C-alpha cells in the first residue's frame, strides 16, 4: 500500500530526480574538465594576463608564443632547447619498447595457454607478481647493471628497462585473451602437422587484433607517462618528455612562465590524449584488463 501511494505521485518526483542526477553528472564533468580548461586557456595568454589573476577567464590577447617557446626555445636544464628534443627522445624510447614487449607478450601468452608444460603455473605467477612491485626495489641494482653494460643514460637502456617491467602485463593480456581461444583448433592443426610457429602465425595471430590494440595502447600510455625510470636512468640525449616537463616547471631560476608550463604540459599529454580520443573504447578495456583478470 505504502509503496503504491509513493508511486502514485511519482511523476513529478521522477522528473525532479532526473534533473538532480543530470545536475550532479554535469558538476563532475566540469570538475574533470577544469584543469584541462585552465591549462588550455592560460597557455594562450601572455604572462602578464595570468599574473593579473583571472585564471578562468578567456585570453584578452590570444597568443601562441608560449607554445612556440615550450616546443623550441624554453630553458630546460642548461639548454634553451624547448621540449622538442625530449619529445623525440620519448618517441625513440616508446616505439621499440612497445613493439618488443608486445611481441614477447603474445608469444608468452601463446605458450602459457596452448603449450602448457609442467610448472607453467609458477612461471605465470612469477610474471604476474612482477607487474605489481614498487619500482623503488629495482632502482639501485638497475642503475648498477646499466652502468656495467654501458647502457647508463642511453635510450637503449631505457628500452630494456621498460621491456622488462612491461612484459608481465603484456603476457597477462595475451594469456587471458588466448585462454578463451578454442584449444581444439590448435590440437587439430597439430595433428595436421603444423608446427609451433605456423600455428601461432596462421591461426592465433590473425584473430588477435583486439588484444594487440589493447596491449599497444596500455604499453604506450604507461611508457610515455613514466617518470621514475626516466629521472633515474636517463641522460642528456635520452631524457624523456615527462622528466623534461618537470625540469621546465620546477627550474628555480628566472621568472615562472606559467603559460609556457601549461603549453608544455599539454604537449607532454598530447600523444596519450590523442590515443585516448581515437581509441577510447580499447583504452578502457585495457585499463580493465590490467586491473581485473580477463
Amino acid at each position, binding site marked *: 500500500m505504502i509503496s503504491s501511494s509513493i508511486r502514485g505521485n511519482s511523476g513529478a518526483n521522477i522528473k525532479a530526480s*532526473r534533473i538532480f542526477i543530470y545536475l550532479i553528472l554535469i558538476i563532475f564533468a566540469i570538475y574533470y574538465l577544469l584543469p584541462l580548461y585552465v591549462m588550455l586557456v592560460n597557455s594562450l595568454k601572455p604572462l602578464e594576463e*595570468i599574473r593579473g589573476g583571472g585564471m578562468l577567464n578567456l585570453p584578452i590577447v590570444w597568443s601562441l608564443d608560449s607554445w612556440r617557446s615550450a616546443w623550441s626555445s624554453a630553458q630546460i636544464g642548461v639548454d634553451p632547447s624547448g621540449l622538442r628534443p625530449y619529445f623525440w627522445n620519448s618517441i625513440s624510447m616508446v616505439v621499440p619498447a612497445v613493439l618488443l614487449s608486445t611481441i614477447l607478450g603474445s608469444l608468452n601468452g601463446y605458450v602459457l595457454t596452448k603449450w602448457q608444460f609442467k610448472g607453467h603455473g609458477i612461471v605465470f605467477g612469477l610474471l604476474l607478481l612482477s607487474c605489481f612491485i614498487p619500482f623503488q*626495489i*629495482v632502482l639501485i641494482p638497475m642503475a648498477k647493471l646499466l652502468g656495467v653494460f654501458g647502457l647508463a643514460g642511453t635510450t637503449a637502456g631505457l628500452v630494456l628497462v621498460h621491456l622488462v617491467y612491461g612484459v608481465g602485463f603484456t603476457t597477462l593480456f595475451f594469456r587471458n585473451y588466448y585462454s578463451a581461444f578454442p584449444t581444439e583448433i590448435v590440437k587439430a592443426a597439430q595433428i595436421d602437422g603444423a608446427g609451433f610457429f605456423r600455428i601461432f602465425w596462421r591461426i592465433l595471430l590473425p584473430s588477435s587484433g583486439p588484444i594487440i590494440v589493447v596491449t599497444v595502447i596500455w604499453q604506450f600510455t604507461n611508457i610515455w607517462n613514466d617518470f621514475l625510470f626516466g629521472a633515474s636512468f636517463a641522460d642528456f640525449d635520452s631524457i624523456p618528455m615527462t622528466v623534461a616537463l618537470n625540469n621546465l*616547471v620546477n627550474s628555480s631560476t628566472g621568472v615562472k612562465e606559467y603559460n609556457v608550463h*601549461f603549453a608544455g*604540459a599539454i604537449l607532454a599529454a598530447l600523444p596519450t590524449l590523442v590515443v585516448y580520443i581515437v581509441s*577510447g573504447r580499447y583504452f578502457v578495456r585495457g585499463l580493465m584488463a590490467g586491473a581485473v583478470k580477463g
Partner: protein
Amino acid sequence: MKNYLQLWLPRIVLAPSFFLILVFVYGFIIYTGYLSLTDSRMLPTYEFMGWSNYPKLFGLRHWKIAVNNLAIFGILYILICTIIGLLLAILLDQKIRAEGFLRPIFLYPMALSFIVTGTAWKWFLDPGIGLESIMHQWGWESFHFDWIKNRTFAIYTVVMAAVWQSSGFVMAMFLAGLRGIDGEIMKAAQIDGASGFRIYRRIIIPMLRPAFLSAFVILAHLAIKAYDLVIALTNGGPGRATELPATFMYSYTFERNQMGLGATSAIIMLIMIFSIIIPYLYSELRSEKES
C-alpha cells in the same frame, strides 16, 4: 628430431622473458634486500652488517612523516575515489542519454601522466594566481586557500589531484560491474515495492563486491607507489610535509648517500604491496582454476 624440437620450442620461446623477470625482478629484490643489511652509502658495499638499518629507519623522524603521510593519503585516496566512482557509476547507469558523451570526460585524466596532472594542479591551487585569486576576483575577498603552501594541509592537495586522476577509472570498474548484473533482479525488487535507494543498498552494492575488491587493490598499490605526482605537485614540500615512502627512498638513496637506508625503505614498500597483492592474486588464480 623434429618432435624433440617441437617439445622444447615453447620453453625456449618463454625462456628469455622468464630469465629477464627472474634476474631483473626477483634477483634485484634479493640484491636490494641484501643491501638493506649493509652500511652502503654512496655506492653499494657488501659487508654484512645485520638488521640494524631497520630499527634505524623506523626511528627516523623523516620516515615517520613519510609513513604517516602515506596513511593519510592512502586512506583518503582510496575512500574518496571509491565513493565518487560508485556514485558516478550508479548515476550513469540510470539510462542517461548523454552517457557516451560524459563517460570519456570522466575517464580522460587516466590517460595523462602524473607529471602533467601535478603541473596543472600546482598552479590551479597556487594562492597567487589560482583558486584563491579567482575567488577574490569574483568578489569573495575573505576567501583563503593556501593548502599547497601549508605544512599541515599540503598532503590533502596531493589527495585532490590524485582523486581527480583516478576516480574516473574506478567509475569504469563499477560501471562494468553494474552492467554485469542481471536486470531481472532489479525488476523483481521493484515489483516487491522496494525503493531505488533500498535496492542499491541491499542488493546491487553487495553484488559489486568483486569490483570493490579490485578497486581497493589497484588503488592501494598505486598509493604505495605514488611518486611522480608528489614530485610535480609539491616536490615533497613545503619542508617535508608531503614526503611519501617513494620520495624518501629516492632522496636517501641518490641524494643523501644513505643507500643502505634507501634499500631498507624499498623493502618495507615491497612488503606493504605484497601483503595486499599476493592474497588477492592467489584467490583470483584459484577461483580461475575452479571455474
